[in-house]
C-alpha cells in the first residue's frame, strides 16, 4: 500500500509546520486540512461542525490568519505555518483569549470554544482593542448554540485587557 516504498516520502507528500513542529502529510493532497489534523495528526481540538465554512468550529491560524480548516485542502497548506488551538498556550500559560474564556466561563458545551478562541486570537493580533461592533463582525462566522454569545463578547474584551496587562508587565 505504501506508494513510495521504503523510507522514502511519497511524491504527493505535503510538508507543513503545525504548532511549531514540521509535519509531513502523505497521500492526502485532496483532503481538507481539518481531516488531516484530526485523522492524521490526532489534533482533536479543531472540530467538525458543518464542513462548509459556516460554523467556525474548525478555525485555525494559517500564517497568523484565521481560516476554516474544512475549506483548505492539504496541498494548499504546503510550506505554510499552521497553529491550532493546541498550539496557543505556552506550556501552562494560556494565551489571553484562552485565559479570558476560561475566567468568564464563556461557553456551555464548549464545542465551539476552540474555534472561538482561535478566532479571537487572530482578531486581537490585528485589532488589539476592538470595539463591540468589530468583535461581532470578526466572530460572525462562529456559531455557538448553547451560551447565547453575550459572555463571548465580554470574554473578547477581557482578552484584550489581559493582552495589555501582559504587555505592560513585560515592558
Amino acid at each position, binding site marked *: 500500500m505504501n506508494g513510495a516504498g521504503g523510507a522514502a516520502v511519497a511524491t504527493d507528500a505535503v510538508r507543513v509546520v503545525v504548532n511549531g513542529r514540521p509535519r509531513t502529510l502523505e497521500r492526502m493532497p485532496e483532503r481538507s486540512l481539518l481531516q488531516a489534523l484530526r485523522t492524521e495528526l490526532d489534533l482533536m481540538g479543531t472540530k467538525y461542525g458543518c464542513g*462548509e465554512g459556516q460554523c467556525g468550529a474548525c478555525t485555525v491560524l494559517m500564517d497568523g490568519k484565521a481560516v476554516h480548516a474544512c475549506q483548505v485542502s492539504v496541498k494548499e497548506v504546503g510550506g505554510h505555518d499552521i497553529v491550532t488551538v493546541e498550539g496557543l498556550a505556552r506550556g501552562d500559560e494560556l494565551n489571553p483569549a484562552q485565559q479570558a474564556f476560561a475566567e468568564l466561563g464563556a461557553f456551555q458545551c464548549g*464545542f465551539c470554544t476552540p474555534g472561538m478562541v482561535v478566532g479571537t486570537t487572530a482578531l486581537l493580533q490585528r485589532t488589539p482593542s476592538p470595539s463591540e461592533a468589530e468583535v461581532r463582525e470578526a466572530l460572525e462566522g462562529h456559531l455557538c*448554540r448553547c451560551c447565547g454569545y453575550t459572555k463571548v463578547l465580554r470574554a473578547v474584551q477581557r482578552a484584550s485587557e489581559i493582552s495589555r496587562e501582559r504587555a505592560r508587565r513585560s515592558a
Partner: protein
Amino acid sequence: MTLERPSRPWDRTPPKERGYFEVLGDGILCHVLPRDRTTGGGGGGWSPPSGGAWVHVGADGRIRAFTGKAEVGQGTHTALSLVVAEELRVPVARVELTMADTDLSPWDMGTFGSRSMPDAVPPLQAAAAGAREELASLAAARLLVSAGQVRFEDGVALSPEGGHRVTYGELVRGLRKTVVASTPGRTTPAADWKTAGQPAVDPAAADVVTGRRVYASDVRRPGMWYGVVLLPPNHGAELASVDTSALEGEEEVRLLHDGPFVAVAAPTPWDARRALRKVRATWRSTPQPGEPEIEAYLRAHPSHGDHWDVEKLAEGDPARALAEAAVSVRATYRTAYIAHTPLEPRAAVAEWEGDRVTIWLGSQTPFRGRDHVAGGLGIPPERVRVIVPFTGAGFGGKHGGDVALAAARLSKAAGRPVRVAFTREEEFQHGYLRPMSIVDVAAGATKDGLLTAWTFHNVNGGAAGIRSPYSIPNLQADNELSDSPLPQGPYRALAANANNFARESTVDELASLVGQDPVAFREKNLADERLRTVLRTAAERGNWTSWRPSPGRGHGIAVGFEKGGRVATVAEVTLGPDRRPHVDRLLTVFEAGAIVHPDNLQSQVEGATVMALGGALFEEIHFDGGVITNRRLSEYRVPRFSDLPRVEVVLLDRKDLPPGGAGETPMIAVAPAVASAIHEASGVRLRSLPLLRDGKVPAAPRSPAT
C-alpha cells in the same frame, strides 16, 4: 480517567454484590439507592423517586461521585460537583464526578425535562452528607471527641479547637465500608451554603479552551476504523434492492449487509464514504406530503402512540362562557418544524473486548442507549457499556442510539474499534425535529379584564404548556398527536414553546381589547404567586411603565411556567424602513428555586433566550417529498452575533425552595414577547413561528383571526 469496568454494571447488580472497592480502592462509600430491581424498593435508607447516587471517599484522598445524568452542555458537571463539595466541605476541584457511565453510574431515565438538578441534587447531597457523617464518626474516635464536635475544613477533620487534624484519606485508610445514606435531612440547607450557590470557575475550563476536552466525536481507539451507514434518500423510503458487488476484492473495506442494514467500515472516513458510494441501492418510496399540505395532513392523521404526551383539561362551560364574554378572540397559531442543530453531530465509537462492548456516545439517554444496543445485538444489557463523554450539546435532539448500534455492529464485523459519526447533512436529514404545532384558541374576558373562557387545542405539538398559569373558570385545554411524516421528537421545552406563544399572544390581544396594560391584565389573572413576582420584577427591570411609545418601535412582555421554573421576558423591537424588525433588547427574569451555580445559570438563561430567538424569528425546516431541503448551515439559519440583541438576565434566588431545572423554561416567553413587540411596532399580529419568512413584517396579517 476511565475507571476499570466492574464485572457487572452496578445498576444491574444487588448493592451487596457490587464490588465497589475493587474498582475504586479502599475507602468508604455512601450510596443512595434508587427504587429499582436491584434494591427491590428503597434498599434501606432514603430513596428518591428516581435516580440514585454514590460517593466514594478514598484512602488515596480522592473524592468520587457518580450520577446517571450526562453533561451535554448544560453545565451540570460543575453544578452537581458543587453540591458534593458543599456537603464534604472541600473545594469543588477536589470532586471527581463520573456522569453517565452505564457500568458505574446509578440508573437514570435520561438527561431531559430539566430534570438534572431536581433528580440528581437530592441524592448526591444525601450521599455526600452520609459520607461526611461517616467521616465524622471515624474522626471522633481518632480525635477523642464526640462526632458532633468534629469540624471539617478543606478536606481535613479537626478537633473543636483545631489542635488535632486528620485528612479524609487517613481516616478511611484500610477501610472498605459501604453505608446507606440516611434521610436527606442531614444535608446542608441552601441558606448555609458556602461553596454551592457561590460564583465558581469551572475546574475543567482549561481543558475546554485548550482543545483537550474529549467529546464523543474526538474519541480515538487503537486500530480504529471509520464506519458509514447506508441511509435512505428520503423519509418514507424502504430499501428495495442492494448491489454490493463493486466492493468485492476490496481488502481494506469491511462490508456489513444484514437485511435493511448496510454499512461499511474502512481505515479513514473518506475511504469509508468512497466505499459506500460504490454500493448500488434502489428504494421504494411512498408519497410524502409537502409543505403546502402539511397542516391538513397533520389534522387528518391522528397518532395512536406516545400517549404520555397528552393532556386533557376541562372545567366549567367554556362554550357558554365564550358566548357570554364581553370580549373574545379566536385564532390559529402555527409553529414550524425546526432542528436542534447541536454543534456536534451524532457520534459513537464502539470497541469489543471478548463478548462485551464499550461505546462512547454523545447522548442524553445512555441507559436507553445501552438497552437499544443490547436489543439490536440480541445480547444482555450487562454486556454493553455506554460512556457519555462531554457531548457537544443536545437540546432534546440526542435521545437516539442508532449510531451506537451501528458502531457496535460494524466493530464486531471488522474485529476492531469503529467510529460512526453523522455529517451535518445527515444530522438534518436523519435526526428528528421539533414537531410542527397547530394551536386553535378561543378565549374571552369580562370588560374588567377577568379571563372567563378558554378553549385551546394543540395538534401534533405535544402536551407541555397546555396547563395555564391563569385562573380561568371555564376551560377546555387539550392536545392530540399526529402521525408526522417527518421524524419528530423532544426539543428543548417541547410544545411549551408553541403553547405559550399561542397563549400569551391571546392574552395580549384580550388585554388590548379591554384597554388594559398587558402587565396589569396578567397580574390580575395569574393564579401563581411565584410567577406574579417574576412578572412584577420583569416589568420593573424592563422599564415597562416608563416606556415612551414612538413610531416603528414596540415592546412586548410574556410569562410562563414550565418544569418547575417561572419566567418572564420583555422584548424591545425597532422596525426598519423596509419593515425588517430588529430585536434590540431581551430581558429575561427567571426563578427556579435555590441557585446552585449562579454563573452557569446565567449562561443557561442567556443561551436559552438566544436559542429561542432563532425559533421565534427565522428557524424553519423546509421539506419536499420526505427530503429536508435546507440541510446545511448555509441554508438553515440559526442565531449569529449579528442577531444578538442586548440580552439581560435577572435571576431570583429562592433559598427556601429546592433547586429546580433551568434548561428549558427560559425559552418559552421569548417568541410571544417578540411577537407582541412587533405588533406594537407594526400593527401586525403575527401568528406563525417563525415570525418572519423573508426577514420582513408583512403589510397585512398573514394569518388573520378566523
